[in-house]
């Protein structure tokens, strides 16, 4: 450090300060790029979740102004938290869908065992508002004879 100051001579006090300012500006740009990238990833998660809504925590707000390095870091970290929460919610939803698909597969194999179960298309992650349920074949006759089948209701015509 002493050698550096000697090399710079009389202007040595100004140069590091300028370099520091430039370094901070570059750091702010990097943070802004990270914030933009995180927002793109969060947006992708929100779109993937549609028509379900992700519950995401609000971010600290105080603008519009040029934020300091520290404020940008806090915002970036908050966005990382939001992205993590969004992905956890998507993963939990996918697990629920897997469970619903497995249940439907079991219903198809043994309808009589699942007579009161109803699984909606939405629970399966499929479009439309139809519902899978177990119905007797041939109406009352099938109910008395124990003839059961899995049927998908036609759903609401307005949904399509």
């Amino acid at each position, binding site marked *: 450090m002493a050698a550096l100051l000697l090399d710079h001579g009389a202007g040595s006090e100004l140069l590091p300060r300028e370099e520091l300012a430039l370094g901070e*500006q570059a750091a*702010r740009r990097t943070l*802004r790029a990270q*914030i*933009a990238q995180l*927002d*793109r990833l969060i*947006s*992708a998660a*929100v*779109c993937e979740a*549609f*028509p379900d809504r992700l519950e*995401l925590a*609000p*971010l*600290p*707000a*105080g*603008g*519009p*102004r*040029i*934020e300091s390095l520290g*404020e*940008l870091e806090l*915002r970036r970290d908050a*966005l990382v938290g939001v992205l993590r929460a969004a992905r956890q919610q998507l993963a939990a939803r996918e697990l629920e869908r897997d469970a619903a698909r497995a249940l439907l597969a079991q219903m198809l194999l043994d309808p009589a065992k699942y007579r009161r179960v109803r699984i909606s298309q939405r629970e399966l992650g499929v479009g439309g508002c139809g519902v899978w349920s177990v119905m007797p074949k041939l109406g009352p006759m099938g109910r008395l004879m124990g003839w059961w089948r899995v049927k998908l209701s036609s759903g609401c015509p307005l949904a399509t």
Partner: protein
Amino acid sequence: MAGALEEEFPGLRAEWIGCECSEHRSDAGVGERLARLASRFSGRQAVELRQQQVPAAYRSFFLQIGIDPDQQPTPIEQAALGRLLAGGNLPQDRISDALLLALLETSIPVIAFDASFVTEPIELREAGSGEKIGADEMAPGTLIVADAEQPLCQLFTAPEPPLAATRASRHLLLVAVAVPGVSEITSDEALTIAAEAISGG
């Protein structure tokens, strides 16, 4: 644009154009275009807006200047929300319809000022100590739209009368705030659409 802001946000700029307004009601063509844009719009599209290039650029910029776009939506997301809640793009007056049309067509917000109260050039800058918009004193460092003499409005906030264009305004100054990532051709298009819808060109 002020130097500090230009260094921090290369590409951030205010563009403006003058136009004349002689009617209160929108031309039939403007109403039809608004209705057509409304009829093509669904909830999924409203959500997916945030992934399109220009709306995403505004969202990113909002986050970078300390605004949470999920609490204070970007102008295009606000318009999409308004469309879903109202069930259509309801006609208002010539100026509002023109600004909405430009926003929906390009995703770029355009502000209309009464030209008799505004002096070119328009710039984006940080508010200085003690600067006021109307009766409200701005916190130093707040990003504002300003003309050669005075602050006009806070960035992404509607201007107040008498600066804002009203039904009584004849000469208007339309200002588009383009953020980094928005091409010049798109912001020009927004201004042209709004100016033509207002002046009937």
